[in-house]
């Protein structure tokens, strides 16, 4: 460790154990308590010493360390990306912690203060000067200045690095950089971008940083001094002294002290606006600066940056610019603007107050109402307030024209920034103070969301009001939340502890984790998972489960076997019938004799036929379907043959079925004539065909009522009633008999019912199918029907009575008898089969 220490303010070599500089009384020992065991914060007048902020890393809260780490990483990524893309102005990316703030100021392309750069350790991107018509800007500001004026030139001229204090230069040359600078720069950058993107939104009233504010001296940037401080410096110079040739600085004093020396005389020589005396204390080190500062010639005008926003009507002061370019404005503000600095200490944000002095001085009274009153109250950081001068500065000093930030922050805008609460704003004095100072661009951009009107431009800027900026790097070291946290943590170390890890890192008052607290003190009570159910309940549950299982269980398809068996049975029966009956028919066997006795109804029918007068008109109705032609012809032929043979009636055939007329014609023309050629009846001579009688039972009723009206024409559309067979027939009762050949009960009943009254004494003989015979038999028993020949069995009796003619029944009779036996056998066998299978199934069930 070196035995001597060089004063960062004046450059004087002092012993290492000396706390203050022997020359300028500046503090040589840093106030960062945690670093050196000194917990006392900075006090007004104390000059913070440069300190490598990386040493504060261990005592930082976890969240801040993570933020720094993120900022460092993001900065490294951006640097690499910047190198690749060769972009002049990279778009900073705010960390997640201040993402909201970054979003507000994302568009603002503002240069990050160097002090923040030093904190974060990440070099801030340099603001790119956009070429813009200066003529317009000056017109907008109410101050017209030709292009290429000295002030403009000064604005574009970068001050030399030698204009900065050595300690600042040292900071600029500090190898270690702080990530927070870049971090905050990103937070403030969007605001600048936003203002740049919306120049029309009050852009005329708002002071655009990029075009109007002169480019900060590169030397100042390199030295780690905040650009807003540089702006303060430049503004103070431009407001206090006109441009004049600055002598070359050849004094062997620290560079920054040279600048101080050069600015001080300039302020004394040309005070632009008299500054009211102030009682604000000036830091000791600043007093020493002021008292010991030699008169130094002002630097050349080309090295003076242009004031950012000269007040309306105030000509650009190149001298002041020159002075300001050499002496930091905040230093002059410390010495001259005591009231402003006092007020500024009151409006410091809370988060900066811990870095300030323990005791705050009251705000300056009776501030001059300026346009800044309309401006929003801007909060000054506590560190700035802590830098209040211990003694009032000399009245003869030229006030430094303050320059506000772009547009000046408004009250609403301040309120929009949560970090800067209004409770720190005391009164309008603060506005005046703000008018005499320039806030950091990042701070103003962060708190400024809307451009102010032109009339709200700071008049104090024209009044050469200076502010009292504070030492940046050290207060950052000393103040920050770290110091407060350390102090608080040290004060209440025994009560609260700062969480060092986990998601609650950096928070105080967190309930400590008690070892074993999360562990159950006793063994948890074991609960049995076995269901306590009685036997009855379990039985019921089993039954329910069985029922449900039976409902969901697939049922085997037994129908297929049944269908298969039925099909086989059908095929078997069909085969048996076809084979047996075919064999019997084709073999023309006569195994089974015809019945010797005919049933009573058949005998009645035979008697009725025999009772028909010879050659009498007889109505024959053919009401059967083609499907029963075989049976009906076999059943009717014997009776009709007997009738024709014995009685030679005049036949009139009729049908209530459309197909019946054709079947009647078939019966008369083919079947009957074939079977008995002797009884060949000719149509129109022995019989007539009425054809089809429409209307169903109504037609039958109509025909019974009036045959001539219901059927005026025959099937061949001839005048059938004038034909020979129907001679003397006009009514139904005129027929000697009515013979109905039907396969349907309904048809037979219709003729029975509808003709009962109209038929008179004419007997009705029915030749029916075997399926309709049983239902028509009661009409025979009741006397409504004279006789009934039902099926082949009834025809067999008629054929027997007819002498075996025509013999068709005989041809069918063996097959018919065999068929009946097969049916009986099949029924019996089927019944027995079912009986056996039923017994077997029952035995099987009983065995199971």
């Amino acid at each position, binding site marked *: 460790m070196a035995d001597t220490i060089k004063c960062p303010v004046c450059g004087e070599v002092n012993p290492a154990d000396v706390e203050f500089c022997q020359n300028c009384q500046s503090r040589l020992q840093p106030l960062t308590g945690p670093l050196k065991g000194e917990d006392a914060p900075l006090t007004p007048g104390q000059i913070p010493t440069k300190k490598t902020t990386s040493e504060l890393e261990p005592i930082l809260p976890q969240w801040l360390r993570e933020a720094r780490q993120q900022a460092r990483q993001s900065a490294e990524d951006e640097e690499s990306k910047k190198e690749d893309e060769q972009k002049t102005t990279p778009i900073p990316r705010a960390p997640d912690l201040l993402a909201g703030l970054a979003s507000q100021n994302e568009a603002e392309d503002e240069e990050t203060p160097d002090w923040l750069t030093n904190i974060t350790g990440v070099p801030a991107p340099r603001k790119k000067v956009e070429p813009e018509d200066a003529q317009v800007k000056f017109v907008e500001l109410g101050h017209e200045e030709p292009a290429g004026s000295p002030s403009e030139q000064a604005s574009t001229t970068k001050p030399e690095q030698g204009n900065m204090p050595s300690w600042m230069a040292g900071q600029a040359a500090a190898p270690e950089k702080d990530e927070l600078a870049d971090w905050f720069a990103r937070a403030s950058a969007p605001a600048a971008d936003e203002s740049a993107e919306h120049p029309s939104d009050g852009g005329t009233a708002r002071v655009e940083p990029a075009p109007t504010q002169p480019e900060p001296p590169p030397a100042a940037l390199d030295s780690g001094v905040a650009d807003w401080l540089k702006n303060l410096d430049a503004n103070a110079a431009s407001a206090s002294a006109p441009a004049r040739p600055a002598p070359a600085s050849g004094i062997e004093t620290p560079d920054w002290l040279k600048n101080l020396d050069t600015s001080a005389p300039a302020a004394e020589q040309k005070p632009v606006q008299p500054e009211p005396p102030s009682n604000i204390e000036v830091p000791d080190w600043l007093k020493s600066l002021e008292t010991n500062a030699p008169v130094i010639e002002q630097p050349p005008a080309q090295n003076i940056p242009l004031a950012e926003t000269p007040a309306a009507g105030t000509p650009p002061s190149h001298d002041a610019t020159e002075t300001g370019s050499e002496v930091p404005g905040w230093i002059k503000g410390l010495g001259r603007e005591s009231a402003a600095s006092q007020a500024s200490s009151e409006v410091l944000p809370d988060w900066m107050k811990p870095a300030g002095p323990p005791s705050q001085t009251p705000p300056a009274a009776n501030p001059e109402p300026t346009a800044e009153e309309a401006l929003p109250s801007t909060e000054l950081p506590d560190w700035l307030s802590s830098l209040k001068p211990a003694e009032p500065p000399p009245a003869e000093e030229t006030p430094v024209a303050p320059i506000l930030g772009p547009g000046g922050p408004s009250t609403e805008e301040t309120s929009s920034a949560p970090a800067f609460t209004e409770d720190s704003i005391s009164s309008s004095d603060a506005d005046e103070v703000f008018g005499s100072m320039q806030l950091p661009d990042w701070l103003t951009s962060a708190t400024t969301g809307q451009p102010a009107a032109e009339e709200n431009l700071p008049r104090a800027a024209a009044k050469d009001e200076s502010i009292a900026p504070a030492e940046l790097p050290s207060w950052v070291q000393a103040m920050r939340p770290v110091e407060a946290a350390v102090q608080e943590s040290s004060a209440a170390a025994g009560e609260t502890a700062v969480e060092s890890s986990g998601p609650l890192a950096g928070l105080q008052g967190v309930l400590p984790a008690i070892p074993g607290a999360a562990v159950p003190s006793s063994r948890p009570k074991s609960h049995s998972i076995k269901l306590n159910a009685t036997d009855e309940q379990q039985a019921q549950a089993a039954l329910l489960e069985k029922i449900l299982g039976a409902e969901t269980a697939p049922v085997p398809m037994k129908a297929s076997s049944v269908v298969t068996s039925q099909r086989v049975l059908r095929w078997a029966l069909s085969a048996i019938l*076809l084979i047996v009956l075919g064999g019997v028919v084709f073999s023309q066997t006569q195994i089974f004799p015809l019945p010797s006795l005919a049933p009573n109804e058949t005998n009645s029918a035979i008697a009725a036929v025999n009772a028909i007068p010879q050659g009498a008109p007889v109505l024959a109705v053919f009401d059967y379907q083609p499907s029963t032609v075989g*049976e009906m012809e076999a059943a009717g032929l014997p009776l009709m043959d007997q009738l024709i043979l014995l009685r030679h009636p005049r036949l009139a055939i009729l049908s209530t079925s459309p197909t019946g007329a054709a079947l009647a014609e078939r019966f008369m023309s083919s079947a009957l004539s074939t079977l008995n050629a002797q009884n060949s009846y000719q149509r129109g001579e022995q019989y007539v065909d009425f054809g089809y009688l429409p209307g169903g039972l109504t037609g039958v*009723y109509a025909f019974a009522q009036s045959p001539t009206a219901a059927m005026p024409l025959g099937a061949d559309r001839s005048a059938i009633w004038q034909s020979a067979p129907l001679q003397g027939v006009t009514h139904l009762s005129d027929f000697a008999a009515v013979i109905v050949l039907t396969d349907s009960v309904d048809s037979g009943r219709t003729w029975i019912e509808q003709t009962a009254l109209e038929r008179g004494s004419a007997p009705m003989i029915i030749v029916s199918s*075997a399926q309709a015979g049983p239902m028509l038999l009661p009409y025979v028993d009741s006397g409504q029907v004279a006789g009934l020949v039902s099926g082949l069995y009834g025809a067999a009796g008629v054929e027997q009575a007819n002498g075996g003619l025509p013999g068709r029944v005989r041809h069918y009779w063996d097959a018919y008898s065999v068929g009946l036996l097969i049916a009986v056998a099949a029924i019996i066998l089927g019944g027995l089969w079912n009986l056996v299978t039923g017994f077997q199934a029952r035995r099987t069930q009983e065995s199971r």
Partner: protein
Amino acid sequence: MISPDLIAGIFAFLLSLMIFSYLVGDNPLFRVAVHIFVGVSAGYVAAVAWWQALWPDLIFPLVSGPALQRALLAVPLVLSGLLLMKAWPALSRLGTPSMAILVGIGSAVAIGGAVTGTLFPQIGATINAFDLHKAASPFEVLINGGFILAGVATTLVYFHFSAGPAAGGSVKRFSLIEIIAFVGGIFLAITLGVLFAGVYSAALTALIERLHFFGTFFGLGN
């Protein structure tokens, strides 16, 4: 030379085989035969309806009949036209009067015929079953009459389903009615058996006729 009877016999033989093929199950041959039968029947019915109903009874009188007959035939003509409207759902209501006439007249004729031709004569016949004047011996009359009367009465009672509350909350017919209904069930079973036998007999006769036709067609029979 192929006679028309031979061609008709061939067609009849083929169609009969196609119908018989239904014994092995539903098949296209059976369907073709059925479709042919339905088509031929429909065509024949249409021709019969035109030539034997519409033309002689409606169209021809309207064309060549006297004026009075024409005027009278206008009524059935209009009703027939309205009845055709039943083919279109939107106009089906126009055929309602014709349907009303058909249903009304048909029901009246059927009921009148049933009452006068079936109900009264059958009731009278059942009553006269005990007429000793129609029978040679009173025993036979009593047997036949009693049997008929028992069958009719028990069968009618079988369809008497009125019942009253019984023990246990169930519904049950009176015991006497139950007994009579049971006897009526026996008569019904016999009747249904007779009907089934008649149906089988009819079908068997038709089968035999077809087999006889086959024998005749191939010269195996006469």
